[in-house]
C-alpha cells in the first residue's frame, strides 16, 4: 500500500476516498481541540534551533496520517471507527507542530508525495502497520523532546506523544495484544 501518485488506481481511489473523510475529520478535530491548539500556539516560545527537530516529528506525523488515510477503508467497522478518530487527532498534532514551526520563523514541509506503507490487505495487517507507525513516532518523541530548548515546548510536544501512546494501546488491544505491556512507552 502506498500513498504515492504512482500507485495503482484502486489504491489511489481508496486514498482519495479516505482523504475526503480526513478533511471532515480535520474540521472535527480542529473544532474539538481548538483551545488546546491555541494554547500550544500562543503559550509556548519556540527557538529557531528547534525547527529541524519539530520538522522531523512533523514528517513522522504526516507518515502516520498517510497510513491512517490509506488504511481506514481496509479496516473492519469497529477498528475503522477508532482509526478515524485517531486520524483526526493525528491531523491536530500535525497542525500544532506546523504552528510551532511557523512560530519559530520556519516553514513547515508539505507532506511527501509518497510514503512507503508496505502492502497490507487484511484488517490485522493494517492494524499492525498503524501500530508500527505509532511506535515509530513514540520512539522519535522520546529521543527528540529532550533536545527541544524551551521547557514549555517540551511539555507541549510531550502532550502529543502521550496521545500517540493512547493510540498504540488501543491498536494493540484490537490486535489481541497486551495494550500496556511496559511501564515505559519508548516505541520499541
Amino acid at each position, binding site marked *: 500500500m502506498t500513498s504515492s501518485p504512482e500507485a495503482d488506481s484502486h489504491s489511489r481511489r481508496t486514498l482519495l476516498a479516505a482523504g475526503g473523510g480526513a478533511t471532515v475529520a480535520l474540521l472535527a478535530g480542529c473544532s474539538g481541540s481548538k483551545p488546546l491548539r491555541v494554547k500550544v500556539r500562543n503559550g509556548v516560545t519556540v527557538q529557531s534551533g528547534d525547527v529541524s527537530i519539530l520538522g522531523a516529528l512533523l514528517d513522522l506525523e504526516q507518515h502516520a496520517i498517510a497510513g491512517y488515510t490509506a488504511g481506514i477503508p481496509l479496516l473492519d467497522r469497529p477498528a475503522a471507527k477508532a482509526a478515524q478518530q485517531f486520524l483526526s487527532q493525528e491531523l491536530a498534532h500535525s497542525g500544532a507542530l506546523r504552528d510551532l514551526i511557523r512560530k519559530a520563523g520556519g516553514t513547515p514541509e508539505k507532506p511527501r508525495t509518497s510514503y512507503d506503507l508496505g502492502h497490507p490487505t487484511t484488517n490485522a495487517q493494517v492494524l499492525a502497520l498503524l501500530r508500527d507507525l505509532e511506535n515509530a513516532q513514540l520512539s522519535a518523541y522520546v529521543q527528540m523532546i529532550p533536545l527541544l530548548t524551551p521547557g514549555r515546548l517540551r*511539555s507541549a510536544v510531550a502532550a502529543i506523544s502521550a496521545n500517540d501512546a493512547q493510540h498504540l494501546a488501543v491498536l494493540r488491544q484490537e490486535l489481541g495484544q497486551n495494550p500496556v505491556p511496559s511501564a515505559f512507552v519508548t516505541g520499541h
Partner: protein
Amino acid sequence: MTRRQVVQTGIVGTAAAALLRVPDAAAAGAVAPSDSAVLARTLRIEQLVVIAYERVLTSGLLAPGVSGQLRTILGQEHRHVAVLERALRELGAALPRTSDSAAERLLAAHHVHVGLGSLRDQHDCLKLLIDVESLAEGAYYASISKLSDPGLMRTSIAAMGCEAQHWTLLNAIQHPGKLYRSVPYPFVQGSP
C-alpha cells in the same frame, strides 16, 4: 477596634504582605527548581497512585477480570516509583513518603472528589483511579518542562505515555464500547 476595622486592617495587612513577598517570589521564579525537587513532587503523586490502586484492589468491589487488569497496572506504577526513587538516591536527595492520610489530603488538594475511604462500587473505584492517573499525567507533563537532565526527561516522557495508556484502559473498562471517552483529546496534559 471595630469588626470593620479589623477586616480593613486585615486586608491592608494581607496586601502589604503580598507586596513584601514580591521580591522573594520573583527571585524564586528566576531560579529553576532542581531536578531532585521536580522528581520528589512526581514521586509523591506516584506514591498516591500506588496507595489508590492498593485501596481499590483490597476493597472487594471489583469484578475478577477487572482486578487482574488493575494488578498489572499497579505493577507498572511500582516500577515508576522504583525508578524515581533510584534517580533521587543518585542525586543524593531524601525520598518523600506519602502516608494514607497525606494521600487523602493530596486528593482533596487536587479536587479529586472520590476519596480513598468513600468507595461504594466498581464505578467509584475506576473513577478514583482515572482521576489519579490524570494527576500522574499532569505531574509528568509539568516535570518534562522543568527537568534539566535529558535522561530524566526521557524517563518522564516514557512514564507519561504509560500513564496515558492506563487512563485509556481504565476508561475503556468504565465505558465499554465508547472509544471517544477512552481517547478523547489529541493533547494529553493530565490534571495540574
